[in-house]
């Protein structure tokens, strides 16, 4: 079996001492920031990215991925214990998880969340291993028109399916595409939008945009919120769920994993949507729906499995097609590019250690989260007591060191400050910042593929609809846009955003 052969190869890579260490660092940092509200995986990955320049691409990717799924895990811990979603994906877990904690059943809730996440993570890992290679095979046959249409579909879907205002999301994608064009044009060498600054001739640094918007902008926004933190810390007595708990949870975990995997491969849908959908499904299926909201264990098992499955499956389009389906995946793609790896289907054949090593590490990382973090819950909860007034200056400091260390350039620090202000303004005006990052990452590739397509076709734009695969992507793009204009769907979407 090829699959087993590959997986064994991947485990060989991931189990090297170095990569195990990177994985451990990643999931620990991830749990930490998942626990702490006010800093999310996007900001953290952006801040830590400069550190990864010095290590091998596999290690870098393993660590950054660990931060991502570790954060999902940490977010659920605080949701259950203090009714505070450390990450947006844990909002739904708060509902029943916190009620369970108030009834003195915090331990079983945490354990089920961990078991559900682990199961979902395992399935997600298997799905990537199963569907990754055939998808990449298909993608290898793509020409420029197919790539252009695919990116168009990805960007439109990401903007449209994301929570919040659809038009504003699309506008942010376009803004990101423009930002991506800054610097020398690859074909002619013309300096675009560099305003005479030689520092901009290579484009705006990826880390500058990401840290500026997702770390600095986020802090400025947070300091405006006058919301008080409610601290009720439940004590964890016994971790072990009862037989009854286990029996009730099996179904929700399986269904949650399914829903999460489905939403995972769709671009734009964050883990929040997957966990919400799975919660609603369990409530519909339940014999006694009134138990939900009062500490039903199904209400913890389902969304926790769903958001983890979603997080893992988001890697499928990124690794096989080079198409980021979310802000975090855009960062991963950026990390690959900085390491000198051209993302796309070739990665799997040319750098198999990267693909299979990462997959294997995700399974190991999920195991680490269960084995290492459950006993450490007390420590994580203590961390919650670090006041934000100390936390944010520390984030500022690490952001600044991270950015400065890339090129030893103060110019990039000033630029980051500027993007911080821009990010703040965007959030205040209701623009979601993540789509901008997608556009920014894909901008140069999209332009390049557009140019090549037009050269190929002799300047005839119909090339995008005469080639069948490209046509399929275009039709899908139009369908996605149409569906969203239908009022019923739109209202539903607004409900979910609340």
């Amino acid at each position, binding site marked *: 079996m090829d699959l087993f052969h590959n997986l064994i190869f991947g485990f060989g890579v991931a189990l090297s001492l170095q990569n195990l260490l990177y994985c451990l660092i990643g999931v620990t940092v991830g749990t930490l920031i998942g626990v702490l509200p006010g800093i999310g995986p996007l900001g953290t990955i952006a801040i830590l990215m400069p550190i990864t320049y010095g290590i091998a691409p596999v290690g870098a990717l393993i660590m950054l991925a660990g931060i991502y799924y570790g954060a999902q895990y940490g977010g659920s811990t605080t949701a259950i214990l203090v009714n505070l979603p450390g990450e947006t994906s844990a909002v739904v877990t708060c509902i029943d998880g916190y009620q369970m904690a108030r009834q003195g059943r915090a331990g079983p809730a945490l354990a089920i969340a961990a078991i559900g996440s682990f199961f979902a993570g395992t399935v997600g890992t298997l799905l990537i291993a199963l569907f990754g290679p055939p998808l990449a095979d298909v993608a290898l046959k793509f020409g420029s028109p197919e790539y252009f249409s695919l990116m168009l579909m990805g960007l439109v879907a990401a903007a449209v399916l994301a929570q919040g205002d659809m038009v504003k999301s699309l506008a942010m994608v376009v803004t990101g595409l423009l930002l991506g064009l800054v610097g020398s044009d690859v074909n002619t060498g013309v300096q675009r939008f560099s305003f005479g600054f030689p520092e901009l001739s290579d484009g705006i640094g990826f880390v500058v945009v990401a840290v500026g918007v997702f770390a600095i902008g986020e802090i400025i926004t947070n300091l405006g919120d006058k919301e008080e933190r409610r601290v009720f810390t439940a004590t964890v007595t016994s971790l072990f769920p009862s037989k009854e708990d286990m029996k009730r949870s099996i179904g929700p975990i399986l269904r949650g994993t399914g829903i999460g995997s489905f939403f995972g491969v769709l671009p734009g849908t964050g883990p929040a949507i997957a966990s919400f959908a799975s919660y609603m499904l369990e409530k519909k299926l339940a014999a006694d729906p009134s138990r939900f909201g009062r500490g039903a264990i199904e209400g913890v098992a389902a969304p926790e499995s769903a958001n983890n499955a979603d997080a893992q499956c988001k890697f499928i389009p990124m690794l096989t097609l080079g198409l980021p389906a979310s802000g975090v995946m855009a960062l991963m793609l950026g990390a690959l590019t900085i390491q000198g790896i051209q993302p796309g289907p070739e990665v799997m054949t040319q750098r198999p250690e990267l693909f299979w090593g990462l997959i294997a590490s995700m399974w190991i990382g999920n195991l680490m989260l269960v084995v290492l973090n459950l006993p450490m819950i007390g420590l994580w909860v203590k961390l919650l007591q670090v006041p934000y*007034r100390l936390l944010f200056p520390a984030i500022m400091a690490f952001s600044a060191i991270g950015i400065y260390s890339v090129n030893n350039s103060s110019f990039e620090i000033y630029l980051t400050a500027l993007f911080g202000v821009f990010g703040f303004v965007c959030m205040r005006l209701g623009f979601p910042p993540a789509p901008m990052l997608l556009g920014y990452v894909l901008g140069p590739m999209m332009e390049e593929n557009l140019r090549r397509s037009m050269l190929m076709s002799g300047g005839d734009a119909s090339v995008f609809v005469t080639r069948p695969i490209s046509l399929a992507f275009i039709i899908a793009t139009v369908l996605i846009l149409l569906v969203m204009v239908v009022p019923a769907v739109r209202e539903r979407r607004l409900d979910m955003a609340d």
Partner: protein
Amino acid sequence: MNVKLSNNKDVWAGMMLIAIGAAAMVIARSYPFGTALRMGPGYFPIILGALLTLFGLFILARGLRRGEAIAGSSSLRALIILPLSLVLFGVLMEHGGFVPAMIVLIFGSATASTEFKLLEALLFSVALTALSVAVFVWGLGLPYPLITDFN
């Protein structure tokens, strides 16, 4: 439904997009546009700028029709202090060294919070600076002078 124009979210949002889109188009006009067959460096930016302007007009019109106020509160203090602290960090890294840059950045940022406490912030900035020196300069070997003579 009567939202003051100065507090109308979509009006501001629309104007911002129009400004960015229009600026992109104006700047990109000086780059060779090329033809559909051989696109010049100006082709893609002008399309994007036009698209952005259209989005902006749509959102502006929507804001004028049914206005929505900018919700929540924001901290002008943070908006000024945090970027300023970063800028000071940048200047001090070139003219003062790592230690003054870090202390000014951390202490400066801390003043952005309404819960700012002088003594706590001072101690915290010194402690975190010491930690950063140990980890980043001595540990990871980043080549920054700890302190220079402010030239």
